[in-house]
């Protein structure tokens, strides 16, 4: 099915909060605000549902970038979920950076249900960033393959 074997087609997983960014992605869709097909969205009830294991799992399975989108701080549907997510992701990203994994491969963005434009822009930027980083080899290869 691949379009062009030569071209790098990144695999990007986006975890989107059902109440804000998932709806923001819907709005981007109904407003026909394009972003690359490389982005695949997984619906979660809240950014605080995103377990670091999901992210590492994605990288291990060959993802080139993972983005987590939640409600703006202060606007969490469950009041406080995104605050916990913010701390968890900050620490996780810092650890990945510490281990030499390019920190552009992970991102957290707050996108509300009304921000279709922001959703599309964010995804375009993120895909561009992943393109500039190229294929993810590091997280898939933390142990020397011998």
């Amino acid at each position, binding site marked *: 099915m691949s379009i062009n074997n030569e071209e790098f087609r990144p695999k990007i997983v986006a975890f989107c909060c059902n109440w804000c960014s998932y709806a923001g992605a819907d709005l981007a869709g109904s407003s026909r605000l394009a972003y690359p097909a490389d982005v695949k969205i997984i619906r979660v009830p809240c950014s605080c549902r995103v377990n670091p294991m999901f992210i590492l799992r994605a990288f291990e399975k060959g993802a080139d970038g993972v983005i987590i989108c939640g409600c703006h701080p202060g606007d969490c549907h469950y009041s*406080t979920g995104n605050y916990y997510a913010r*701390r968890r992701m900050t620490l996780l*990203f810092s650890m*990945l950076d*510490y281990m030499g994994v390019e920190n552009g491969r*992970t*991102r957290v963005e707050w996108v509300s249900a009304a921000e279709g434009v922001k959703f599309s822009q964010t995804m375009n930027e993120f895909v561009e960033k992943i393109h500039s980083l190229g294929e993810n080899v590091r997280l898939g290869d933390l142990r020397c393959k011998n």
Partner: protein
Amino acid sequence: MQELINRAKELLANGTVARVLGWKAGDLPYNPEPAFFTTAEELDNFVYNGFCGANLSKYMIAASKLEGKTMVCLKPCDTYSFNQLIKEHRVDREKAYIVGVGCKGKLSIEKVKDLGIKGITAVSGAEMSDDAETLTFQTIYGDKSCAYADAMLERCHVCKGKEHMVYDELIGESKDTKDAERFAEVEKIEAMSPAEKFAFFQKELSKCIRCNACRNVCPACSCRKCVFDSTKFDSAQKANVDSFEEKMFHIIRAFHVAGRCTDCGECSRVCPQGIPLHLFNRKFIKDIDELYGEYQAGADTDSKAPLTNFTFDDAEPSIVTKR
């Protein structure tokens, strides 16, 4: 040491405790091991010296379920772990009679060996009664000696201090052995280029044989069933078809204990492959201190842990790229 034994016998005799949790001599002069003692006779095997690095807090999870109290010997740094376990309802404070034992720094046999001292038949200077300045070894190659500090575990060079956080009584003197910066090693890695960092960790992690020693010894890794043994994450397969666990084990383990790890250093101490595992935990501790305010797990039993807490204006995850 004798004072400890005497006190233990006394407590057993008067029925205050049903058993004593301490260390008994191993088959070599430098490998004492954790042990329960239930009679005065058994206590003749009790030892406490510079090689008693093991943190006994975790054994109290099991001991808490036993009939009667247990006298447990905790070094100052071990009491942080015990506090953390109280906080997480894993041990029962009422079931423990805590004897805070003095500590003058614990020794690493690996370090001794690295100093070229091998074939050891006897050690002196590791008793807790002296000043802990010099160690003398009888070896099959003759007598050798080294400075006590040169043989100390890494964690003792960044010692959290002489104070016990929780105890019923104190026996023995402690010494402040801190002579290095706690985060110096972490900072060194932080300063590397991404490629160097990656090479460093790839090299270290490649040594891992997944023996689970780090997990088993860790007082924070006290789960009844580890996620890595659970069917609920599809992360339990040991077969080669799924290499997820092997690659991510240490990151996840460090994340799971982030904000709960007291930096007791047991993981690095027990790793048979010599992987400096504390570097993961200490990175999280450093980040937590810098981003959310200084926090020492186990310093108390009621503060909110950094990962179950937040402020409205916490740093955004993008700070990682900016720092």
